[in-house]
């Protein structure tokens, strides 16, 4: 891990010319937002206390005892996807480039039906706490768990750093709280939710926030439509009339203009989602495959609905925020940077009180997502590394949960430190990178372990590692890092997204090192596929919900 981070610190240290928040001046405290956020925190701490009383076994801690319904889990999954990054980021992209913002949204959404058809039910039928349970089902525990835990921690930590830095900047801007305190507050609350309330609290915090965000965005979209007499045509006409790019914002622009880049980004977004450990973990919180299936149906509906609202928010903001000089500073730039347009729109349609609400929701969103990330990272440490690898399955549930709580605390401290270290660094590419890495490291091996009889331990480990190494190397050599961050003249790897190449390489190496594996162990592992296949198809023998 440390070597990996050193690899990233190196290029990142070179960046000083970018900061998400445009103005460094101290801002007044926003009391509406702080008041509403305090209500949210008090309420969620109450939920955490309630959840803590119900969290007794390891199954409670990791998966809320498998007792969530499909609808609840669907909301929680939707909550993980409609993060602050997508709410603020996609609406900002639409504000700046129009249609291109929609391309991003569609990539994330299109992955969900595939997850439903190919992943969700088998995952639920085969696994218990982590996706490594599934990959190591018929393979050798130690090497496969080590690799999967490594993949989980890499993805979770990178995602966490991206979220922490974004959170600190955002909270500084919205609430007027100092960056240092903002990051510490996020870290402390995250650790609190996870260590005391486990998955039950984490899921409910996510559900509460998802409802708040869906409600807030619906209200914004409604007010925008009302402003345009409930005519999207009038809204688009207004937007093209005032936008600097004119009617070009209604069609695809520069993004995805290169076919290879387009496919690579599409693959990364589609299958990256299916490799995110905190998302995969959610499938173990429901009682059986049927509920897992229902949860994706609801999640797809909520995510799709949310992205449709964002079209209205983004294009509405072009008119209602873009043309209002009070949202621009002396140089004509949007106050607080491009990512703030959705927040400004909240004020434009609902006044200061609603601005406070949306600010509080944005904070809540970050908290809910980082809590899920911390829990998935902690599970990889306590379940995969400690209980299965170090103790060979001999650890008691109490010991396992204690390690998990300690791991959460360590991840929390690490996240705060990294958040402070990376404060003024350009980490925008990190969140895109996370999906590409997840698509290359976790997804191919997970998919092959469930669908291909021939996968052996050697193939799984080497496939996963080659996906990780190639994704990172290609990204460092790509324009985003090699040119923009390290200031070389020309990128050695011409495409902005490595997923097409690194994912293919991961699949290829997993295949190659499996078919050439003639060891008796490999033969044994292939022989165990049939039993796994029957369980994945029928659910016979799958772990059920724990009774309370």
């Amino acid at each position, binding site marked *: 891990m440390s070597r990996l981070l050193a690899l990233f610190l190196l290029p990142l240290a070179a960046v000083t010319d970018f900061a998400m928040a445009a103005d460094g001046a101290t801002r007044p405290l926003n009391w509406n937002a702080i008041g509403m956020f305090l209500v949210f925190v008090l309420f969620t701490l109450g939920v955490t206390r309630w959840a803590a009383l119900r969290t007794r076994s390891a199954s409670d801690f990791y998966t809320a005892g498998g007792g969530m319904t499909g609808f609840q889990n669907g909301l929680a999954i939707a909550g993980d996807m409609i993060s602050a990054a997508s709410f603020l980021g996609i609406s900002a992209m639409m504000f700046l480039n129009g*249609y291109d913002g*929609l*391309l991003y949204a*569609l*990539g994330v*959404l*299109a992955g*969900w*039906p*595939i997850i*439903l*058809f*190919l992943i969700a*039910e088998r995952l639920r039928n085969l696994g218990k706490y982590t996706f490594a349970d599934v990959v190591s089902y018929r393979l050798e525990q130690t090497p496969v768990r080590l690799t999967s835990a490594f993949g989980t921690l890499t993805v979770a930590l990178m995602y966490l750093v991206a979220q922490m830095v974004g959170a600190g900047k955002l909270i500084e801007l919205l609430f007027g709280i100092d960056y240092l305190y903002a990051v510490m507050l996020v870290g402390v609350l995250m650790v609190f939710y996870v260590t005391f309330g486990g998955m039950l609290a984490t899921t409910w915090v996510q559900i509460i926030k998802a409802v708040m965000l869906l409600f807030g965005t619906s209200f914004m979209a409604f007010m925008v439509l009302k402003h345009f007499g409930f005519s*999207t*045509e009038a809204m*688009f*006409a207004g937007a*093209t009339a005032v936008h600097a790019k004119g*009617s*070009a914002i*209604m*069609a*695809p*622009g520069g993004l*995805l*203009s*290169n*076919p290879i880049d*387009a*496919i690579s980004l*599409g693959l990364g977004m*589609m299958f990256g989602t299916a490799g995110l450990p905190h998302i995969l973990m959610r499938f173990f919180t429901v009682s059986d495959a*049927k509920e897992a*299936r*229902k949860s*994706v*149906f609801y999640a*797809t*509906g909520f995510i*799709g609905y949310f*992205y*449709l609202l964002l*079209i209205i928010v983004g294009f509405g903001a072009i008119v209602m925020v873009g043309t209002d000089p009070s949202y621009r500073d002396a140089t004509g730039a949007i106050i607080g940077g491009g990512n703030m347009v959705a927040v400004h729109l909240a004020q434009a349609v609902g006044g200061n009180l609603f601005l406070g609400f949306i600010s509080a929701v944005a904070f809540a969103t970050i908290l809910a997502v980082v809590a899920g990330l911390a829990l998935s990272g902690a599970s990889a440490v306590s379940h995969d590394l400690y209980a299965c690898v170090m103790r060979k399955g001999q650890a008691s549930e109490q010991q396992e949960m204690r390690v998990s709580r300690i791991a959460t605390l360590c991840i929390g401290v690490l996240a705060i430190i990294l958040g402070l270290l990376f404060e003024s660094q350009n980490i925008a590419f990190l969140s895109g990178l996370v999906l590409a890495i997840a698509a290359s490291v976790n997804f191919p091996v997970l998919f092959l372990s469930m669908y291909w009889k021939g996968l052996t331990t050697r193939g799984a480990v080497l496939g996963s590692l080659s996906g990780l190494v190639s994704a990172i190397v290609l990204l460092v050599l790509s324009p985003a890092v090699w040119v923009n961050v390290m200031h070389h003249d020309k990128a050695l790897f011409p495409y902005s997204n490595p997923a097409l190449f690194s994912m293919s390489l991961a699949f290829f190496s997993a295949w190659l090192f499996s078919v050439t594996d003639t060891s008796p162990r490999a033969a044994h592992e292939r022989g165990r596929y*049939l*039993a796994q296949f*029957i*369980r994945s*198809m*029928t*659910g*016979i*023998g799958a772990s059920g919900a724990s009774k309370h």
Partner: protein
Amino acid sequence: MSPQDIELIHQHPDFIQLVRRKQKLYWSLSLIMLVIYFGFVLLVAFSPSTLGQSLSGGVTTVGMLVGVVIVGLAFALTGFYVYRANNVIDPLNEKLKQECAR
């Protein structure tokens, strides 16, 4: 499951039927979704002007409608899958489980 159980289920006509139906369902739906999404991505890459055409003489473009339709289709496909799985696959699965439990 003992090796005998595995062999029993594996040879069971209901299991063979279940596997066939389930695989047909998920592979065909996955293919449809991949074709829709990557068809769209390739259209964006090769012929963005198609998507930039006016839908009915106004400002709203074909691409905007296509985007909204893809969101709708993604949701509809998941809905169709859940409906088929609940009403066709699950009863078969239950039957198989009961027969094998005996």
